[in-house]
């Protein structure tokens, strides 16, 4: 198969050994690359009983067939392993140029296991691999560590690092690259920390052959031109290249999709007026900061020039300012952006951070936490300085509440008790991202049944059918009526197709945000075919997604998933809100919808793939 090297780099930090492993074509034909390849690595190498911080856990950094082509969105790559938050297999997507550089180093993936004796970082310079002392980098934040590595190795290296939260095993610590992109969810920064791995630098000069270079080049040019044209033709308030994901406030507020006051309210007009949209651009002096080859340009570089929240760097994404702003009732855009910058430097996932803080704020409101617990801070709704200070305390894992909140709100609420589990808006140990389940019931189904990264908004983003008017017409999901957002009719099918779609995107690997400008499944299929020569149809593509979903489910089962886990969803979503368009709506019927989903997938009522389903997908034995 073209578009891949059939080689992965294996690194054992315990034994200080490195080596190349050949990977046969059928593995790619089954799972493509990226997250599919990372899942395959776990299947082959991580037996039942291996946990996230176990040296035997495999941290996989994986490219796919699309890395190396000049298409908008083809800078994405994937991280996979066993997650410390959900305690199962997980994947996370990240972008900019590290994945491209890794591919140019002549490998499809780096698989890291073991635990170093002392802090280290890795340098991969084409075929030459070195494990280097990182003792002096330990304790630096993620951006400082990147600067230090590039100063030593050279600016030409693309680098990933984790900050203090990763070192200190905050369960939702992330890893970053280029000070702008993050493998945010599921705690892979903490997996790096558990291995005493501070960073990885990669540089490559090799070109991976693709099947049809001329066809691919023409396709890339046509797609890039069309995506830019679509974005430029949109009304200003929905234009990604101007606002990035800060456009989502204008889109989600009228649909009742925002997370407000720990998901207990339906509206927050002061916040809607100040967070996102034009105020975002003006307050933060936001300018587009695209990843390599991207014409959509969702990332922003920001500068707040004065005041207590002055900073220069990445602007918060929608999920960040929604979870730390709307969810805490903080309407100060600069404060939220500044807290986001701190979180990024410590390597705290901003979705989980907003979720755990909302839980703590509610504990404070109810008198379960007091100033004695909170370092004297008033954890009151809307208190921006408290957000900033608590971000520091969690990043540093300060003794007491800061440490506890680093465990996530599931563990924190179990320790604190007093009924606080009821407002811990999490599932399977991971905080829920910034989409209100009451606004479209399919969100609930998506989170409950996710297998790729537990409950995750981007591993089966079926909520986009309504909140973004995103369809998959080539797979039979086209126009829907607005009222269907509160119906379970066809929810199983739609949810399954979106899970499979996310899996092929994250395995190809491509940036899902290209869909904001109308990237299509036809674009994806043609690109995969010109890269690989597989000659697939849309049915083949869908089957590939289905296969990856089933492999992930088998891994869930291996690492201890039980049926009841899918039914233990946050109680908060069963309490109706009294304001906004979703007032009075709660996802009644979710239990049956979950079972219907299992059946649609060809799983038994326990949520396990049947032998017949595995046979259909050729998964009785896993290749390689």
């Amino acid at each position, binding site marked *: 198969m073209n578009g891949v090297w059939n080689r992965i780099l294996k690194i054992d930090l315990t034994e200080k050994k490195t080596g190349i492993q050949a990977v046969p074509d059928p593995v790619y034909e089954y799972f493509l690359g990226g997250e599919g390849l990372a899942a395959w690595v776990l299947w082959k190498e991580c037996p039942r009983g291996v946990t996230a911080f176990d040296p035997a856990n495999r941290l996989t950094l994986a490219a796919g067939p699309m890395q190396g082509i000049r298409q908008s969105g083809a800078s994405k790559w994937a991280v996979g392993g066993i997650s410390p938050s959900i305690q199962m297999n997980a994947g996370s997507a990240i972008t900019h140029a590290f994945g491209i550089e890794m591919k140019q180093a002549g490998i499809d993936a780096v698989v890291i296991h073991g635990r170093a004796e002392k802090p280290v970082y890795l340098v991969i310079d084409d075929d030459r691999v070195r494990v280097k002392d990182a003792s002096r980098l330990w304790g630096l934040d993620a951006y400082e560590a990147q600067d230090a590595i590039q100063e030593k190795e050279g600016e030409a290296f693309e680098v990933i690092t984790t900050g203090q939260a990763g070192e200190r095993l905050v369960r939702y610590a992330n890893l970053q690259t280029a000070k702008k992109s993050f493998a945010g969810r599921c705690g892979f920064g903490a997996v790096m920390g558990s291995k005493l791995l501070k960073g990885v630098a990669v540089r490559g000069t090799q070109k991976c052959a693709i099947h049809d270079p001329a066809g691919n080049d023409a396709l890339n040019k*046509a797609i890039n*031109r*069309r995506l830019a*044209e*679509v974005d430029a*033709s*949109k*009304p200003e308030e*929905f234009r990604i290249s101007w606002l990035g994901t800060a456009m989502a406030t204008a*889109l989600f507020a*009228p*649909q009742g999709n925002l997370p407000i006051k720990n998901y207990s309210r339906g509206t927050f007009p002061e916040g809607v007026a100040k967070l996102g949209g034009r105020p975002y651009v003006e307050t933060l002096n936001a300018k587009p900061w695209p990843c390599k080859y991207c014409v959509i340009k969702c990332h922003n570089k920001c500068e707040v020039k004065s005041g207590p929240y002055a900073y220069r760097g990445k602007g918060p994404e929608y999920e960040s300012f929604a979870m730390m702003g709307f969810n805490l009732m903080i309407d100060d855009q600069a404060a939220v952006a500044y807290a986001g910058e701190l979180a990024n430097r410590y390597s705290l996932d901003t979705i989980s951070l907003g979720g755990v803080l909302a839980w703590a704020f509610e504990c404070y409101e109810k008198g379960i936490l007091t100033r004695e617990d909170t370092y004297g801070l008033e954890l009151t709704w809307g208190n921006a300085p408290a957000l900033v200070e608590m971000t520091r305390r969690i990043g540093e894992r300060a003794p007491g509440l800061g440490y506890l909140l680093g465990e996530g709100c599931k563990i924190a609420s179990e320790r604190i008790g007093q009924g606080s589990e009821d407002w811990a808006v999490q599932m399977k140990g991971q905080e829920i991202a910034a989409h209100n389940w009451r606004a479209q019931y399919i969100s609930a189904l998506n989170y409950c049944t996710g297998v790729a990264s537990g409950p995750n908004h981007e591993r089966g983003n079926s909520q*986009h*059918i309504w*909140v*973004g*008017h*995103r*369809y*998959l*017409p*080539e797979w039979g999901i*086209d*126009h829907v*009526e*607005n009222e269907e957002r509160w119906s379970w009719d066809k929810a199983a099918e739609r949810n399954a197709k979106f899970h499979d779609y996310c899996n092929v995107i994250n395995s190809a690997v491509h940036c899902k945000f290209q*869909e*904001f*400008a*109308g*990237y*299509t*499944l*036809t674009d994806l299929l043609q690109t995969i075919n010109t890269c690989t020569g597989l000659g697939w149809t*849309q049915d083949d593509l869908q089957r590939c997604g289905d296969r990856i979903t089933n492999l992930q489910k088998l891994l869930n089962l291996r690492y201890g998933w039980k049926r009841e886990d899918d039914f233990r969803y946050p109680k908060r979503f069963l309490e109706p809100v009294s304001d906004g*368009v979703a007032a009075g709506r709660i996802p009644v019927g979710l239990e049956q919808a979950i079972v219907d989903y299992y059946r649609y997938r060809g799983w038994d009522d326990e949520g396990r793939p049947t032998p017949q389903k595995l046979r259909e997908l050729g998964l009785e034995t896993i290749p390689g």
Partner: protein
Amino acid sequence: MKITINGRPEEVAPGTRLRNLVDRLEERVRRDPMIIALIAKTGKSQMLYILNGTVVPAAEIDRIELQEGDDVRYVHPFFGG
């Protein structure tokens, strides 16, 4: 004659104009509250129509007669699906 609409083959009568297709699609999307709000604000649905990979300016829609093999896409002004 055969054309493709959002990636799926459809049969339309020879001589069909892009306007006919647009009217059909607009009728459906105009029930959507987000589109209704956009029309109230800007006077139009802001739906984008793409013919053979190029966005068709609103003023051009009336002039175009569809041809065998044409590829038509329509994109909502939000995320773009």
